[in-house]
């Protein structure tokens, strides 16, 4: 960890940290000068189009390519036979050996397993020609019965291989005894629909092989460029120093963008083999059937409780619908679901068994708040059910079970990705109290009761979520000041649009004492820094922010040491203000700029000393523990009894973020997360017919919230419990807006229709809500 702690970070005494300054990213983006991967072209590039399976499951009998090859402008057409030497796509992190046979080949090998699976690629001089030719590729498939329900008995994936690829379990305490001795047992059967991140920018990739220097480049990287570099290097058997990934502007990530997919490898392989850059830009239909889906789980859960509603034990059986192959994440989402299921509550005994099952749908992986959106829905539904059973209200049941602040740090006897879960800090009950007060819970409930009495179907629902962020162990950053006093921060972070550059510039500027607009932030370029954790799982601000703080602190120390000689004052009597070193007791007196110090300490100059010349530092931040953000979601909904349509009248989130680097951006993350969470709660679902044909392959069928559906999200940002696990006290804020939404909406619908426990499946579409209303009438 860093040695230098900066007093400027004291609350209320900061210049730019913790302030809602405008973003340094915005100018090119509002003037149309951004550069997303589709906007990038290289001389002599050709274009790739993927021919995809139209069958959910079947044996490939023949693939006819002649007609496609004959189209003028077509350079090559490949099937699996043309790339048979290349392995299937590996897991990014070590995963269970048992999962290996379920990895996806770049192009279907003998069998197709989902509609959308790449079967062939056409490489041509223009995207229009590639598309024309792709339509002439004829794939003959002998259909096999599709498996579409992960809760149904498993079938054969291949001879001797079950579609249940893995069973994961975690447990502690004496579950059996708890259920034996319980006052009562409350059970529920719950499911979460298949939906996903669906960023507004489709995926894209450009492979470019530079034979002169033997370097393979992949443009259009996102999320985890450095770790994907390792994966690509391993895949192609190349030194990782000869593989460079480059991030462009990225039009949203949400967990699904930036994973390595077949297309990423194919553009690289084609560029090496054909000797020219190869560009692939996904279209929306492809995105909706080929990019990672997520979330689909079925839970059979039960709780043992005492007479006061205290949870004695929790038991869950989970069926996760992984789709047709296991992708780069392995079984990560299932592991996270198990690990985070108990959330913020005291759960003395716990057992969960997860069934990781393959079906004939698009492969699944992480989406914002992976495992937590699902688990929070399940756990909070169960709490509502316990409350209903014991005649308690939803607030009381939660209060009774929340872990108390004096129990922190709280060691859960569970692991996430193999890391022990130790809840770092928090005043859960305090935040719940603050949330209810800020929202006006009592008054709102009273008014809703009146409206219900007058015949309206309105209700409020609440959920408590626990998130996970800032998983270590390490990240690094380079900070340097040039002779003009401009600062460059080089990170291995990534930007998916969340304001990463601004947040890093704020941390650096505060530490160093410069204007944040004079800080340039580099990210997503593997040729600029050796390591990087990228941007995922709400790690960037905590981990990369910690590293930027460490590097900037070191540069500050160097600058003050040098200036102390020149200004003839001890370093601790100096400060840096607006890029100039001044005496604290005479800020208007003699001063020297960081640019001048940089010049004076350059290589070969007197000021350089014996160490590293220049105003420069590469520093690391290490941490063992994670930071666990938490919060409360409250929704007020109105149900239209004729149509089953649910309108969200009000939405409120209170969340503890430790310290907010930029409150405006925190609010933006929460508001955006909420609306995505609402999408999964009410509208979004990848549906399939009985033959496994996707029914949600356009934006007219896959319904995402518009401004009409989106409530004006109210946000209460709390900074009650800074994380002790990083010097700035930050907790990640990327996911909490999403996490509690399914649970809160379900609870609110129950209240509106006066049937506790009615909502058992998401999304609560008009169709589903109507059938609940009908059941109530009967």
């Amino acid at each position, binding site marked *: 960890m860093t040695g230098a702690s900066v007093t400027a970070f004291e609350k209320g005494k900061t210049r730019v940290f913790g302030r809602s300054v*405008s*973003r340094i*990213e*915005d*100018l090119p*983006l*509002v*003037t*149309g*000068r*951004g*550069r*997303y991967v*589709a*906007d990038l072209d290289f001389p002599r590039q050709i274009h790739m189009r993927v021919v995809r399976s139209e069958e959910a499951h079947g044996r490939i009998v023949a693939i006819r390519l002649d007609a496609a090859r004959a189209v003028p402008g077509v350079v090559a057409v490949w099937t699996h036979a043309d790339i048979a030497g290349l392995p299937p796509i590996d897991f990014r992190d070590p995963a269970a050996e048992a999962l290996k046979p379920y990895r996806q080949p770049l192009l279907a090998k003998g069998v197709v397993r989902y509609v959308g699976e790449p079967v062939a690629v056409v490489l041509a001089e223009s995207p*229009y*020609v590639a598309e*024309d030719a792709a339509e002439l590729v004829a794939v003959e498939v002998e259909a096999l019965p599709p498996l579409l329900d992960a809760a149904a008995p498993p079938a054969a994936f291949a001879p001797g291989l079950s579609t249940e690829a893995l069973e994961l379990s975690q447990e502690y305490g004496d579950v059996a005894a708890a259920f034996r001795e319980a006052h009562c047992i409350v059970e529920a059967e719950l499911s979460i629909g298949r939906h996903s*991140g*669906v*960023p*507004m*920018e*489709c995926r894209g990739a450009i492979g470019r092989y530079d034979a002169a220097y033997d370097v393979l480049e992949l443009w259009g990287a996102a999320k985890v460029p450095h770790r994907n570099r390792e994966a690509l290097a391993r895949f192609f058997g190349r030194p990782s120093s000869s593989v460079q990934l480059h991030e462009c*502007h*990225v*039009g*949203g990530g*949400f967990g699904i963008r930036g994973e390595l997919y077949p297309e990423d490898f194919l553009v690289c392989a084609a560029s090496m083999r054909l000797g020219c850059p190869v560009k692939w830009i996904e*279209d*929306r239909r492809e995105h909706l059937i080929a990019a990672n889906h997520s979330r689909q789980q079925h839970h059979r859960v039960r709780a043992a409780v005492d007479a006061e509603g205290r949870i004695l034990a929790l038991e869950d059986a989970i069926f996760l619908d992984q789709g047709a192959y296991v992708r780069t994440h392995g079984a990560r989402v299932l592991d996270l679901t198990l690990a985070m299921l108990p959330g913020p509550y005291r759960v003395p005994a716990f057992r969960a068994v997860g069934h990781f099952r393959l079906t004939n749908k698009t492969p699944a992986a992480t989406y914002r708040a992976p495992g937590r959106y699902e688990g929070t829905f399940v756990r909070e539904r169960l709490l509502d059910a316990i409350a209903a059973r014991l005649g308690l209200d939803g607030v009381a049941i939660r209060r009774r079970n929340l872990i108390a602040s004096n129990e922190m740090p709280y060691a859960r006897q569970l692991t996430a990705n193999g890391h022990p879960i130790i809840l770092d800090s928090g005043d859960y009950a305090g935040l719940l109290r603050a949330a209810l007060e800020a929202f006006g819970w009592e008054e709102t409930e009273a008014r809703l009761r009146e409206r219900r009495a007058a015949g309206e179907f309105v209700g409020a629902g609440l959920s408590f979520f626990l998130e996970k962020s800032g998983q270590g162990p390490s990240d690094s950053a380079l900070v340097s000041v040039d002779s003009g006093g401009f600062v460059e921060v080089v990170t291995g972070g990534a930007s*998916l*649009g*969340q*304001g990463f550059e601004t947040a890093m510039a704020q941390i650096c500027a505060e530490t160093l004492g410069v204007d944040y607009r004079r800080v340039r932030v580099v990210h997503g370029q593997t040729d600029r820094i050796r390591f990087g954790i990228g941007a995922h799982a709400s790690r960037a601000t905590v981990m990369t922010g910690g590293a930027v703080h460490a590097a900037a602190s070191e540069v500050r120390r160097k600058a003050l040491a040098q200036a102390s000689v020149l200004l003839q004052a001890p370093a601790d009597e100096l400060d840096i203000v607006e890029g100039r070193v001044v005496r604290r007791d005479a800020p208007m007196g003699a001063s020297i700029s960081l640019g001048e110090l940089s010049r004076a300490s350059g290589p070969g100059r007197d000021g350089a000393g014996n160490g590293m010349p220049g105003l420069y530092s590469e520093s690391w931040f290490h941490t063992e523990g994670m930071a666990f953000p938490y919060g409360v979601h409250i929704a007020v909904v109105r149900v239209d009894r004729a149509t089953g349509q649910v309108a969200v009248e009000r939405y409120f989130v209170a969340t503890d973020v430790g310290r907010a680097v930029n409150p*405006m*951006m925190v*609010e*933006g993350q929460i*508001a*955006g*997360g*909420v*609306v*995505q969470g609402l999408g999964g709660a009410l509208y979004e679902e990848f549906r399939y017919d009985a033959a496994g044909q996707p029914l949600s392959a*356009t*934006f*007219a069928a896959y319904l*995402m*919230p*518009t*401004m*009409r*559906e*989106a409530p*004006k*999200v109210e946000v209460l940002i709390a900074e009650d419990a800074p994380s002790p696990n990083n010097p700035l006290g930050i907790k990640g804020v990327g996911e909490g*807006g999403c996490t509690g939404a399914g649970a809160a909406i379900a609870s609110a619908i129950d209240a509106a229709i006066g049937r506790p426990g009615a909502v058992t499946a998401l999304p609560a579409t008009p169709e589903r809500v109507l059938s609940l209303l009908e059941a109530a009438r009967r």
Partner: protein
Amino acid sequence: MSQKLEVKLTVNGRDYVLSLEPRWTLADVLREHCGLTGTHLGCEHGVCGACTVMIDGQAVRSCLMFAVQAQGKAIVTVEGLAGPGGELHPLQQAFIDHHALQCGFCTPGFLMLAHATLLESPDIDDEALIDILASNLCRCTGYKNILAAVKTAAAVMKARRRQP
């Protein structure tokens, strides 16, 4: 493939003489042939609005129109929104001030939709404005800052008209 046609497009006040296949969409031609990549493609089937440009004062989805159909019309893209000296349009400034963008992919479409809307109805009320802005998709912001930005820009533009 098909016969190319000689077409003159007027984009942001500048003429482009291009040889185009009739089937090429306006969005593709703006991006690939005029180099104006600020117009984005989010769906290519007319739902997301990322490709919105202004044609003769109307907001139009450029993925649903062939370039040859735009001949003789005044096309404005996001690149044409700022003033000649680069001074930002009130909408652009308001989007920055209100944090109405995160990844920025939807932003050009929203800017052009809002621009055309405020030109036609500078006094539009909130409900009507929401109805119009609900025709574009954003996946990052949750929309509330976009609405706030457009309302602020509308007020700024109105105030400017009052003081010549």
